[in-house]
């Protein structure tokens, strides 16, 4: 029985979150996102030229995502370069952001998103999506709304919000479900599950995800506005 969370959080409480926008000067848009001990950065370049030509779409721009982890972001060193996991995460990340974007203004071009995990403590793909959404807004790409993502799941016998690594590795059983939601809508754009949960548990977890994403969404908005507020303060 999972009675107390490893870090004493409530079942529906996220870890501490930090967000900052405009951290990579050469990028068109960029952001840093930290949730607990998971730290990621994301950069957006585009719209820019797309080669090879057969990939170009004369009706709208293409979205391309690359998720990568530094070798020292994890305790057991990760060999540099893409692996199957990072390739899959790159794909689902792209799919989680695309529904929020309007790329019809950018025919034949590509919007590149690069996500780098600096420190990993579970929930990296969700953190990557949160950072990427802010970076897209920072780059001026027209969006319906920001996309927020968080993991929910079942640890032991409890449905929890925002699993950390200890919870993911819980020996009495752990199911992890990353979820991404577009802003204040109910539109879910990322949904994966890895474990063992029944329908009611999943629906309860999704309610928790909505709550978590809503909190993240507020923090993302604040971070985007803060970029312009700080200039105001330096006056």
């Amino acid at each position, binding site marked *: 029985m999972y009675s107390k969370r490893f870090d004493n959080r409530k079942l529906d409480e996220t870890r501490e979150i930090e967000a900052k926008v405009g951290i990579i000067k050469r990028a068109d848009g960029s952001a840093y996102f930290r949730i607990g001990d998971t730290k990621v950065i994301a950069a957006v370049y585009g719209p*820019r030229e797309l080669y090879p030509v057969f990939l170009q779409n004369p009706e709208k721009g293409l979205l391309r995502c690359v998720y990568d982890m530094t070798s020292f972001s994890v305790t057991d060193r990760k060999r540099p370069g893409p692996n199957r996991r990072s390739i899959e995460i790159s794909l689902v990340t792209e799919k989680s952001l695309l529904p929020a974007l309007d790329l019809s203004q*950018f025919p034949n071009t590509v919007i590149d998103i690069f996500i780098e995990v600096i420190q990993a403590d579970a929930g990296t793909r969700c953190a990557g999506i949160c950072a990427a959404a802010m970076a897209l807004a920072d*780059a001026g790409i027209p969006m*319906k709304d*920001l996309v927020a993502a968080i993991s929910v799941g079942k640890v032991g016998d409890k449905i929890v919000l925002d699993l950390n690594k200890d919870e993911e590795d819980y020996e009495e059983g752990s199911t992890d479900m990353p979820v991404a939601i577009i802003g204040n809508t109910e539109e879910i754009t990322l949904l994966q599950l890895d474990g063992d949960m029944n329908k009611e548990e999943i629906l309860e977890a999704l309610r928790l995800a909505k709550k978590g994403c809503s909190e993240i969404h507020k923090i993302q908005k604040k971070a985007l506005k803060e970029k312009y507020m700080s200039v105001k303060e330096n006056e």
Partner: protein
Amino acid sequence: MGDLLVKDKDIVVPGEELAIGMDYLPAGGVYRLNDKIYASQVGLVSISGRLIKLIPLSGRYIPKKGDLVIGKVVDTGFSGWRIDIDWAYEANLSMKDATSEFIERGSDLTQYYDYGDIISVQIIHVSGSKIIDLTMKGPGLRKLKGGKIIEVNPTKVPRIIGKQGSMIQMIKEKTNCKIIVGQNGKVWISGLDPESELKATQCIYKIEAESHLDGLTDRIKDFLEGKNV
């Protein structure tokens, strides 16, 4: 009935609700969903009458017909040149739009504009798939010799130019520099010495950084006059 949820010059982010009801009309940078108007970019709210639009605070240059831009010659073809105007792809400058001189077919086009030349041009056509055609036939459009090019965020160009060119005119006069501001964020500065070019440069970067704040014109005036800002 309509409800305005924000004020003019508020900073908003994508997805933020700006107005409820059908009274207000969405223009650039915002969109309507059912009976609400939302922002689609990070920008400053701009309300004029019933029209709500956003002045975006970031984003790469998207070419528009009529824009004056500064470009660089990167290639020549049989009947024209290819120009880099900081769009994803190169724009076309055909022989007939380049000069009023008669250019014979097959002649060496680099005699007129060579690789690396910086030119001020105007966009005469943008196709549906964003293929761009340029012209150099127009007042002030020419090859730019000497001076330097600086790059600014294209969304700040209107502020740098100012109402009816008032801001850029002030900078030109006080620094004694020739300045051409391209809508694509490229600015050509040519002064009598590097120091005055540096002053004009710093001034323009200052406008870029503070474009969303009030009282900018006065602060720039003070900066140009050497007062501490």
